């Protein structure tokens, strides 16, 4: 079964630092790679996503980098803030039916 491997499992960053989370996929039905942010007790929220026509997408402090040949993509959080402390999930499509398969998640803690 197709997998999406996410690392690290947990990450501690000082306020103002850069948080980097990586994902690797095996095969995908379509080049669409989203990142979700989940706070305790809440459902995952779509944070940012990248489509196949670009190798990088930036929205505010959040950037996705995509390396198609390596089958890898990553999330960079610039100037990390304590409010960014949450669990982050990457995902990738795994069939033509709109389904996503999720990575294992990264628990990010940003220290003041």
């Amino acid at each position, binding site marked *: 079964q197709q997998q999406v491997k996410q690392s690290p499992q947990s990450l501690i960053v000082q306020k103002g630092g850069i948080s980097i989370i990586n994902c690797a996929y095996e095969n995908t039905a379509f080049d669409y790679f989203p990142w979700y942010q989940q706070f305790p007790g809440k459902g995952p929220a779509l944070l940012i996503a990248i489509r196949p026509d670009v190798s990088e997408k930036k929205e505010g402090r959040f950037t996705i980098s995509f390396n198609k040949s390596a089958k890898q993509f990553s999330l960079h959080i610039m100037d990390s803030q304590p409010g960014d402390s949450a669990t982050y999930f990457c995902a990738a*499509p795994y069939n033509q039916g709109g389904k996503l398969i999720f990575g294992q998640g990264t628990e990010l803690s940003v220290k003041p």
Partner: protein
Amino acid sequence: SAVISQKPSRDICQRGTSLTIQCQVDSQVTMMFWYRQQPGQSLTLIATANQGSEATYESGFVIDKFPISRPNLTFSTLTVSNMSPEDSSIYLCSCSGGLSYEQYFGPGTRLTVT
């Protein structure tokens, strides 16, 4: 984007009973999905629910245990049948427009089976 609500937000149920979780979307959507998330774990897809057709279940999930209804383009239900403590989890519904893979999630239903 879409706004999704779920009912109930949490419940404590006895072994052997069933619970039906409702998912309401604020706009018409093509596809709805049901996931299970153990505390501290990733999301596992249970099934895909398209209006007008039978739900499609992922490996390890069966209709007798998790019957799903999709009566219209804004609503779906998931029933967790004959519950055991192993069914204690967070159940999430999500939706997408069908032509894109963008999925939007509800707040989840936290189920505890005693």
